């Protein structure tokens, strides 16, 4: 199990390969990568991500430990960036490994749902004309109910 909170970019392909190689006994590997999308108007300059050092690592570790146990994962990985990101930059990724695919998929969706609404990150969209904190989506909060 590996949790990383970092300002540096990461290479999702290299991370996926390293994860797959260390996940012995797995038949199924699922990855999710979140990409910085442009603003609705197509003028996003920077997506600034703030976090709560200390609590972030605790929250992600707790979520990942729950996923490992509940879906008998052979391994799992969470990487989340903070700081200034540009459109098309990867923001974060999770990877899960298990014997069969159903568990790897369920665990990855669970990780994402909890990470979206329970890990202390906040996004701010900065365009040429304005600066807005991204509002939490009601459907993200609702998604937690299924677990």
């Amino acid at each position, binding site marked *: 199990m590996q949790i990383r909170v970092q300002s540096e970019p990461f290479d999702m392909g290299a991370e996926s390969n390293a994860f797959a190689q260390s996940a012995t006994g797995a038949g199924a590997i699922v990855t999710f990568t979140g990409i910085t999308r442009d603003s609705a108007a197509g003028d996003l300059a920077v997506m600034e991500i*703030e976090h709560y050092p200390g*609590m972030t690592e605790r*929250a992600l570790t707790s979520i990942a430990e729950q996923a490992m146990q509940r879906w008998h994962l052979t391994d799992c990985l969470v990487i989340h960036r903070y700081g200034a990101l540009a459109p098309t930059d990867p923001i974060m990724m999770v990877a899960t490994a298990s014997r069969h695919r159903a568990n790897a998929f369920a665990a990855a969706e669970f990780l*994402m749902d909890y*990470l979206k609404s329970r*890990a*202390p990150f906040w*996004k701010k969209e900065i365009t040429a004309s304005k600066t807005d*904190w991204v509002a*939490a989506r009601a459907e993200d909060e609702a998604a937690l109910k299924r677990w």
Partner: protein
Amino acid sequence: MIDVLYFAWVRERIGLPREQVETSAATVNDLIAELILREERYALAFSDLSSLRVALDQELSDFDAPLAGVREIAFFPPMTGG
């Protein structure tokens, strides 16, 4: 003394990321009531608690939770990670 941390727009409204507060408040709600009396910017930041979240010693908590033994309290909007 308790460390009080603010994130995202809560930090911007209050104008600082953290401060130490001398308090004998029994609960989170009591502490908020004390802060609101201090200055306008606190009243503004805490005007709608339904749009705020609170963490005690880095664990999500509730506004009626007791503060006894707590060393760090953080206020922030709903999280938007991922």
